[in-house]
């Protein structure tokens, strides 16, 4: 640990990267919504053949 800047405010991005539980939440949410939920909705919405 260097002494310089020890009172410096920790930037937002660093705080985010230092929060494993927050990262865990977004790391699960992102693919759950973008991949699984969206994909499952498209499968369900498939029309029935005439």
């Amino acid at each position, binding site marked *: 640990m260097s002494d310089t800047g020890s009172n410096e405010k920790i930037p937002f991005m660093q705080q985010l*990267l230092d929060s494993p539980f927050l990262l865990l939440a*977004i790391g699960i949410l992102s693919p*759950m919504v973008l991949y699984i939920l969206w994909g499952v909705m498209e499968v369900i919405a498939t029309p029935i053949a005439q």
Partner: protein
Amino acid sequence: MAEFRTCPDTGFKIDLNADKLIKWNAVTAVVFLLVGGLFGLLVALTRWPAVHLLDADLFYLALTAHGLDVLLVWMIFFEIALLYFTSAILLNSRLALPKVGWLAYWMMLVGAAITNVAVLRGDSSVMFTSYPPMMAAQDFYMGILIFAVGALLGCLVFFATLYVAKKEKTYEGSVPLVTFGAITAAIIAVFTILSGAIILLPTWFWSLGLLSHIDTLMYRVIWWGMGHSSQQINVAAQISCWYAVAAILFNAKPLSEKVSRTAFLLYILFLQLASAHHLLVDPALSSEWKIFNTSYALYLAVLGSMIHGLTVPGAVEAAQRKKGYNKGLFEWLTKCPWSNPVFAGTALSVVLFGFLGGISGVMMGTEQLNLITHNTIYVPGHFHGTVVVGSTLAFMAISYWIVPTLWQKELVFPGLAKWQPYLFGIGMGLAATFMMGAGTLGVPRRHWDMTFADAAMGYDFPAAANLMMGLNGVAAVMGSLGALIFILNMVGTILWGKAKVPAPAAPAEEAPAAVASAATSHGSAGTMEVPGTFVLALIFLVSFVLYYFVNWKYLSSVWGLS
């Protein structure tokens, strides 16, 4: 109260619970590598047209066991060991919930054993993917579920240890980069396991007769959330190993904490979307869904990988130049310890993962290009380029450091160890290349007889396809020999290795503060430029671009589809 010992090599404070759990998980992993690897050899020898070793039923049995034991069991056991190492040991902390750690271990072992028995019994040759409506025996699914819950508990122990270490202030500031990579792997693991549970639980009920129907498309969408993401755990874990080896061998510091961690963040956000790679020629999913997911949202996870591909060798170059290896572009590289298996394995892993696994994965993960690769043996070619010569080789490399260090024993066959990464890396690298070559000619994956001898109507593959499948067999024999030497070396070292003579302080023992004073206070690598690495990265990029567009050219020559 947790008890600790101090590692004589590194000065790390090691929680005895963590020590024991890491050892048991790692050894179990290696046992499954042996079992799964043997099945893989049988598969390769059967697909070698001139040998055609197994009968069809045994071939599909061996292929199912091969996929399960190496893609899942070997990898996850080793990764659980890495999670405990990167949390408890690198953070100088006690391992939280050691009893849960043991429960996790036994559940994984029992689950893996149950599924293996189901497969070996011969009534569950449904492949690793177990697509319905093909049904395996119920205990096949049950075993995987038990294994998955065990792995989830392992992740819980990891996250709890992070929490404990922070609360008990066993380290200052942010976690080490390697631990951050492990966090990335663990996050992906939790998503992987949840997806697996969402789909395998109903599938298990279906095999018990409690459910009448599993929609095949729904199954594929959700199952690949597990099947592909499980391999993304490997990628994150393997890159952590790369950074760790650079630090251990060279005292190398990341060029920039910010860049490397942001690259991992891109993995956390987007890497798992690539599960869509498997669904690009499936019905009922829109091109919008396919393009967005298969490209990890604008290829941001590929960007992450390309960053790691620069920063890992870049960190080594910076460290080597600091030592005075400054001549020309590549003196830093030629002066690397190429006969040290820890280094050689890692270096090969970086190069082969990038060129074989990385480029091919992006190519066939392109919506339209997937038409000319889907379900051909190009696909196994690609993932032997990632999970075998990327992850497995990286794990082997770091084992050459972890095993002698944790057990405090000398390697039993140091001479063989020098050659092992080359034998395994080049052997399996060639196997991956030949499979991709055969796949380009349309040779199917998971197929017992590409000569179609007992089919009513046949199809003749060009001679080159048969030749490449034969060469794949030869290369796989070479790779298997490499794997066997690794396993003998590890097991031999643990059982009969000579106790290590306490060595003079290893470089890694140097306190971070001392290293800090050597560099400028800003930028972990100082202001060191890395021209050699940059040139290598450009060579990679040019190969990538050329290969990518060659395949578009190939696609443009096939029948019109719209």
